[in-house]
Structure formats: structure tokens, C-alpha cells
């Protein structure tokens, strides 16, 4: 029986899907609506430098639907679009105005998307531009963004709204406040105020004090 138990554990281990191969994991993505459908800029982390430093690279993808968009990104990386490390998704105003219910449901249904990833609305600049701004604390802007949002949520400056709470609020057609991101005068990204969503669509903005 001990041998069978060991055999069982050996069988279960490969089913975890973990492997040493994780080329270019995605740390963050910016999504927008276009005339043709959707566009995405994904931040991937390159870890092949000789001095051991990680560096961001950016991939753009397009698609008529969200599934076509992710399929396009996957095709451009030869089937290695590794989304399970993504922790932040920036939503462009074009997409926020069109509605984010479909996006939240799509991400929640993807097995490789974390239910704890954070959605944030880009204000005053395109989402893909905000994603690529220099970060203060980290060499990878997307990672720095997540740490900024996580830190503000822990301090109580932002509502703690990971994807699963957003998805639930949108399905129940509740009013939703998502944090906004803007570009500071010195060229960094900072969080300030909230985007108000009603029936899944952008209904306006609130300042931090309101």
C-alpha cells in the first residue's frame, strides 16, 4: 500500500502543470477597444540576461473578440503566452466606456488567470502608454504597478477589489469603483481617484476625497 501511495503521488505531481519551462511570463497587460475589436499590450519578463537581471518586453496583439485577442498573443509567442503570473490589467477608457462585464467574465473563466489580479482604469493617457512608464521601485513597471495597488489597498486608500470581487459585483449588476491610474508630471504612474461603473459601463469619476 505504501508503494501504491507513492505511485499515486508520482501520478499527481505532473498533473500540477508546473514545469521548469516558463518562457516570458506575463506580469501585466493593458487592454483597449478598437474599431476592429480589442487590442492588448502585454508586459513580458525576460530573464535570460547574463547578469541575472529581469527586463520587460512588450507584445501587442489584436482580435475581434477577447478569445481571438488572447489567441493572437499566444500565436505570436509560438504557444507560450504564459498569463498565469499576470497580476494587473489596465483598462483603457475606450474599453471602460464600452463595458467591462465581458472582460471580467472572460478573465475569471480562463484557467491561467489569477482570480486575485487587479483591474485598474487608465485616465488621461492610453493604457498601453501608462503600462510602459518608468517605475520608481522596480525594474519591471507592471510588477511595480501591482505592488503600488496592493500597498494602497492594504493601507485602506483603495477598495480591495481583486478580479473575483469585480466579477461578482458585475454579475449582480452592482455599482463598482475601480482605481484610476494617471501619468504624473515627472513621467511615472500613480493611482488617484476612482472610475465609477454602473451596469458594467463607465458612468463617471470620483476623486479620492469623494
Amino acid at each position, binding site marked *: 500500500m505504501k508503494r501504491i501511495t507513492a505511485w499515486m503521488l508520482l*501520478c499527481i505531481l505532473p498533473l500540477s502543470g508546473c514545469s521548469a519551462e516558463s518562457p516570458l511570463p506575463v506580469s501585466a497587460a493593458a487592454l483597449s477597444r478598437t474599431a476592429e475589436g480589442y487590442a492588448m499590450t502585454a508586459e513580458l519578463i525576460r530573464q535570460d540576461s547574463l547578469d541575472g537581471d529581469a527586463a520587460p518586453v512588450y507584445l501587442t496583439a489584436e482580435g475581434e473578440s477577447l478569445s481571438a485577442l488572447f489567441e493572437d498573443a499566444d500565436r505570436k509567442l509560438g504557444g507560450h503566452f504564459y498569463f498565469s503570473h499576470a497580476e494587473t490589467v489596465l483598462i483603457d477608457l475606450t474599453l471602460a466606456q464600452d463595458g467591462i462585464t465581458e472582460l471580467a467574465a472572460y478573465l475569471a473563466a480562463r484557467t491561467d488567470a489569477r482570480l486575485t489580479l487587479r483591474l485598474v482604469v487608465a485616465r488621461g493617457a492610453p493604457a498601453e502608454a501608462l503600462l510602459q512608464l518608468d517605475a520608481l521601485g522596480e525594474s519591471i513597471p507592471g510588477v511595480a504597478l501591482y505592488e503600488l495597488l496592493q500597498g494602497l489597498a492594504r493601507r485602506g486608500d483603495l477598495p480591495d477589489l481583486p478580479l473575483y470581487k469585480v466579477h461578482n459585483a458585475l454579475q449582480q449588476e452592482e455599482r463598482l469603483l475601480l482605481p484610476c491610474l494617471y501619468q504624473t508630471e515627472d513621467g511615472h504612474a500613480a493611482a488617484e481617484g476612482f472610475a465609477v461603473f454602473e451596469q458594467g459601463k463607465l458612468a463617471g469619476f470620483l476623486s479620492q476625497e469623494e
Partner: protein
Amino acid sequence: MDKHIFSRWQISLCALFVLADGLFLPLDSASWLSLLCGTAAAAMLLPPLLRLPRPLLNAACTLLALILILHSIRRLFLFWQYEGTPAALATALLLLTAWLLSWRGADCLFMWSLPVMTAAGALLLLSAAVTVPDWSLRYLVLPSPAPFLRDSARAALGFLSVLLPAHLAGNAKAPAKGLLLGGGLLALLSLRALLLLGGASYAYPMYAAASLAAVGDLLKRCEIVFAAVLALCECTRIAVCFSFLRSRTAFKAAPAKVP
């Protein structure tokens, strides 16, 4: 059955048998309560069912074993397909493991289930406990009577499949306790999923809720451990079915006694 099967072994095997449903439970606002009521109803119905005439009970359990094997294969295959694992290979490995488990006989399976149930129960409880700070009590609502009664009856009917290990053990009291233990754990997992995910729809809500179990920034994405534990329970369920079918085949193949 040659060897004595202790009550705690029977409780463990029946609890593992019931927990096999854990990965595939649907989620609504009252499913945890339906599971609790269904468990209690099934535990009350189990002793009279075990007193049915022997040939009828054997025929019913043989049919049940065949149905449960096919049902388990189907749902595991679909889950692994969804999860992106090579589904055919994973299902074949699981069937082979279940067959190896059943090969040593039912008494060994009962004995083996005690440490496995202890480990599985501890991991499931831990997985639920680490998510407690994120539970939101506003999702708790009173159920509507008609759907609640329908779901409870359906759950009770499903839990009555524990008739199979109970018949294998030749006893009803300890299997009923195992059913209550397994059903109680399932209700807890369902309640956890409700308090975390609310009314949002997911393909596998229990699995989705388990993915939120994390210990700080160090240990995240614990759903793999959760799924592995419940796949182990499914493997045990198939092994019980194989074991029962093997015992029936051996019984039929045994030469008639010379008077």
C-alpha cells in the same frame, strides 16, 4: 470479508467516497445547506437500505458500481480538459492507480483509507481556514423552500451511493458516520466558495474558491493541492467500485461446495 474492519476505517473510506464529489459541486446561495440536509437524510436512509434482500442489494450495488466508474471517468476527463492537463493520460493513470488499490482487496483499502482521510481532511480544512479573512457574510441568504427541498433531495440521492462501501463493509452504523463526516466537509467547502465568490458563475466553483487560498505572498495558487486531494478521493471511489466488482466476480467464479 476475512479480516475485521474497524469502525474508524469504515468511517474514513466512506468519507473519502463522499468527498469525491468535492471538485464538481455546483454553487448557489443555499447549496451548502442542501448538502447538509441531504447528508442527514441519506445517513438516516442508509440502515434500512442495507436490510434489503441480499440478491437485490448485490444487483443494485453492481449496477451502482458500473455507473459510478463511468460517471467518475467522464467528470474527471472534462475537468482535466478544462484545466489544460492531458486528460486521456491523466484519466488512464488514475484508473490504473484505482485498479492497483483495489487489487490488494477491500480490507486493505479500508485500512489504507484512515491515514489518507486524515491527511485529506487536514488539507481541506487548512485550505478553508486560510481563506476565512476574505469571507463575506453578506452572501448568506435564506433559501427559497421549493428549490432548497429539490436540491436537498437530489443531494440525498447522490449521497446514497455510499451504500456501496457500506455493503462492502457489511455494516451501516460506521458508514453513516463517514457519510456525515464527508458530507459535513463538502458543506463547509460549499459555504467557503459561497462566502468568497458570491453568486458569480464559474465552471468549477470549488476549484476557483480554492485558488484564493494563500499564505501571505509566499504560498499562492493552492488549488493544485486542493484538486489533487479531491482527485485522490475520486480515485478511492473508483477503487471501491473495482473492489466491489472484483468481490462479486470472485464470488461467482468460486466453485460450488460439494455437499
